[in-house]
């Protein structure tokens, strides 16, 4: 049997289905007028189709969907090469662009490499130039914008898509994700609640989990993230690995290292070398006092996914051993890995610099620049710590207040806040002594 037709569709989806949704009489008459132009008909078909439709995409289900390739690393590569092939022949093939973007987005997450998402962005913008109203491409673009940290763009795109199809839960997910990154928590949570009430799903459970975590409800976060893992298809190992790693991180926050270890190993079992799984296992090793193993895991992972975070962790481990030269090398690498694009949208470089007493004035400037574009608690935390390190305690205290406003029980935010508060008290005490 033709392997492609084997992949098709969804059991009950058959019948005239996708086509029913797709070919309107005017299409037929157009095709009649140009009998040879099958491509016109199929393009129109593609325009009407959607990832959420079982009978969509000329029959091809999205990656990770029943009948589609799994989201394993091989499955993602297979889908990417198929769809790149289709786009080479026909650059405005909307369904190919959407399916490709979906696979690229997952690959970006599974490799912590931004280039797949950049490609997705280009492809979607190309098809949207010809068909500005193409809903599936628009909807997907919101997700890609998020992945590239263009939160305001993502929000605008998602709102446009929401206006077009108010009953599509997806758009509330994108809106909520963008709002959370921008620090507009009340509206973000409302979007997530809307998403949930429209259709409880793994995506909605995961967002409620994060919202609960931000509100300091770690038990509830764990419960919801487990629901998300439960609700995920076995065909979707990439998402399964993502959820398992998140559960592992939550267990680490509880200090339940054994449970965390199991979840990180589970993630690595379903998706070999999944970055969050490998890094999680490194964290578990360090938490158990096995710093050598932690170091080995981080070094190995750095080869696959070089990130600021990993380099900084390695620097810290070498520093803990008293190996200043190595530690300095990795700290330097961490700085290099941040990259200008990331430094403008994320305060993590500023935070790294502040935590490691490097280029502190620059750290303040960077954090301020990021904080002028977003008001989330992690940016505020970085800002507060940069201020603290340069002795601007009042500003540090104000930023720290903002970082604690959701009630999140984030160890880093809380410890920074405690240090800032102590320093403020100490100074107050000094002042009082002077005047007494």
């Amino acid at each position: 049997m033709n392997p492609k037709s084997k992949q098709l569709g969804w059991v009950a989806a058959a019948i005239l289905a996708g086509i029913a949704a797709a070919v309107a009489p005017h299409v037929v008459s157009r095709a009649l007028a140009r009998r040879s132009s099958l491509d016109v008909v199929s393009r129109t078909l593609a325009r009407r189709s959607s990832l959420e439709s079982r009978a969509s995409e000329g029959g091809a289900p999205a990656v990770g969907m029943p009948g589609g390739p799994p989201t394993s690393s091989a499955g993602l590569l297979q889908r990417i090469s198929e769809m790149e092939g289709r786009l080479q022949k026909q650059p405005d093939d909307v369904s190919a662009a959407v399916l490709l973007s979906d696979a690229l987005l997952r690959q970006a997450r599974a490799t912590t490499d931004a280039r797949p998402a950049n490609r997705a962005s280009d492809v979607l913008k190309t098809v949207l130039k010809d068909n500005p109203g193409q809903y599936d491409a628009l909807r997907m673009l919101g997700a890609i914008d998020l992945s590239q940290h263009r939160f305001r763009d993502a929000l605008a795109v998602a709102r446009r898509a929401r206006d077009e199809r108010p009953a599509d839960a997806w758009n509330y997910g994108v809106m909520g994700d963008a709002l959370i990154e921008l620090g507009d928590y009340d509206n973000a949570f409302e979007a997530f609640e809307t998403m949930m009430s429209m259709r409880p799903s793994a995506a909605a459970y995961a967002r409620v989990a994060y919202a609960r975590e931000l509100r300091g409800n770690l038990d509830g976060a764990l419960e919801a993230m487990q629901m998300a893992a439960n609700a995920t298809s076995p065909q979707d190992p990439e998402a399964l690995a993502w959820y398992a790693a998140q559960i592992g991180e939550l267990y680490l926050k509880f200090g339940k290292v054994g449970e965390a270890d199991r979840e990180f190993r589970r993630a690595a079992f379903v998706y070999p070398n999944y970055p969050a799984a490998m890094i999680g296992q490194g964290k578990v090793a360090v938490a158990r006092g096995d710093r050598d193993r932690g170091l080995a895991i981080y070094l190995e992972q750095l080869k696959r996914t070089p990130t600021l975070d990993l380099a900084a962790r390695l620097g810290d481990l070498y520093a803990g051993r008293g190996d200043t030269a190595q530690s300095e090398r990795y700290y330097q690498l961490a700085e290099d890995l941040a990259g200008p694009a990331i430094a403008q949208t994320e305060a993590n470089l500023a935070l790294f610099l502040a935590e490691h007493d490097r280029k502190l004035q620059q750290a303040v400037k960077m954090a301020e620049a990021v904080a002028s574009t977003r008001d989330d608690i992690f940016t505020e935390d970085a800002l507060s710590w940069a201020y603290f390190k340069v002795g601007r305690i009042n500003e540090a205290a104000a930023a720290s207040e903002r970082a604690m406003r959701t009630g999140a029980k984030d160890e880093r935010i809380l410890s920074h806040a405690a240090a800032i508060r102590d320093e403020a008290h100490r100074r107050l005490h000094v002042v009082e002594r002077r005047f007494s």
Partner: protein
Amino acid sequence: MKKTVLFIVVAALVGFQMLPGKASSHREAPLISQDPMADNTDLYAFVSPDAPSTVTIVANYIPLESPAGGPNFPAFDDTVLYEIHVDNDGDAKEDLTYQFRFETQTRNPDTFLYNTGPISSLSDVNWNRPQTYSVRLVRNGHGAASHEEVLGTNIPTPPDNIGPRSTPNYDALAAAAVTTLTNGIKVFAGQRDDPFFVDLGSVFDLAGLRPFNGLHLLPLAADAGHDAVARYNTHTISMQIPIGQLVKPGNPTVGIYASASRQEMRILRKTGSADTYGPFVQVSRLGHPLINEAVIPLGQKDQWNRDDPEDDAQFESLYLAPEVTRLENGLYAALDNANESGRSDLVAILLTGVPGLNFTGPRRADLLRLNTALVPSPAGACYHPAVPSPPSTPSRFGVLDGDLCGYPNGRRLADDIVDIDLRAFAEGYGSILHGLLGLPNRTPNNLLGDGVDANDKPFLPHFPYVPSPHQGYEVP
């Protein structure tokens, strides 16, 4: 300078190029969540040919399971509420709701493997992820007087069919999971061959029907149909229920639908309570086959799935002027153009039942209606007396061929839904229904079909009727 050198050295050592982009966001949760475990694929209901005082209901979930889908093998979802709803008085509200909840154990927490040796029985310790379930019956689901009864707990399911090493003697394993509840209801839940058959590959290619390729607007050489669902598995929940427990006296026709629901979770706890869960929300339902696909447009699918059949009057216009018929007319010039509006025939078949056969009243509702008074022969057929020299075997065209024990009077596993629907939507009802009910019998519309006429595996002659699943080892 030193920094650049180090950078290059590290880059060379570890073999990567510097990337312009971002590190992974720790908060980028997946957005796409098609939900196969909470997705109804098909529903069947028929008077059991080998036990004619009972009705068998088969509700399938999880589409297109690839038999070799390891290491994560499909299973029912412990957090989903699976339900089979029965209306037995024609008001389209459920009178009997059978609820299925699953529970998965992990026998060995030290491994993520499905099994660590051959699974020779349902209690074999080599099977690391056994799943059991409970069945509850809720009466008058919507009414104030509803009450619940536990029909069974801790009922076993068979494992998935992995291969000759992991699951030898699979049929015996599966048979051991057939359970009779205290009130005489038989139940089975587990992986099965997907009994549906259809040429998706051609149908999705602009409504192509390979045997009629030459007649398509964009003609191709005619060809035999290809069953796209062949060699795929699904998960079945089936029940065999004594008819007396199902119907109300004097009212032999029941309307049935199956559903899957997921529970809402809230961000904040309600003040003063630990209630972080909201209500169950129906995310999938199925009565007649192919309604969600062929009748309900994309933008309304979530809403349609969430609504109950009793509210289906809102969708009536989609049945009266079906897009499928417009397509048939437009793509196949050789067909005698069927009416594209005013299709009260489809409203009767799909929303109210056919008068004289399985009519349940004027209330519009997508329910699979079964007249339990029509008793099949041991072979499973029951032809109308007007059928000249009826065969002894059931017809895949069901009622279209005068075999009243087939679709749309309930639905048997072997009923050829695709061909029946193609003909009905094109008003090619056949001579028997033309004679009996005056339904139009356009030609050659009454010959339409996708060329796939039967399932790839023979059905079992006894409960649960759906054949054992394809084995991963054999089907790559």
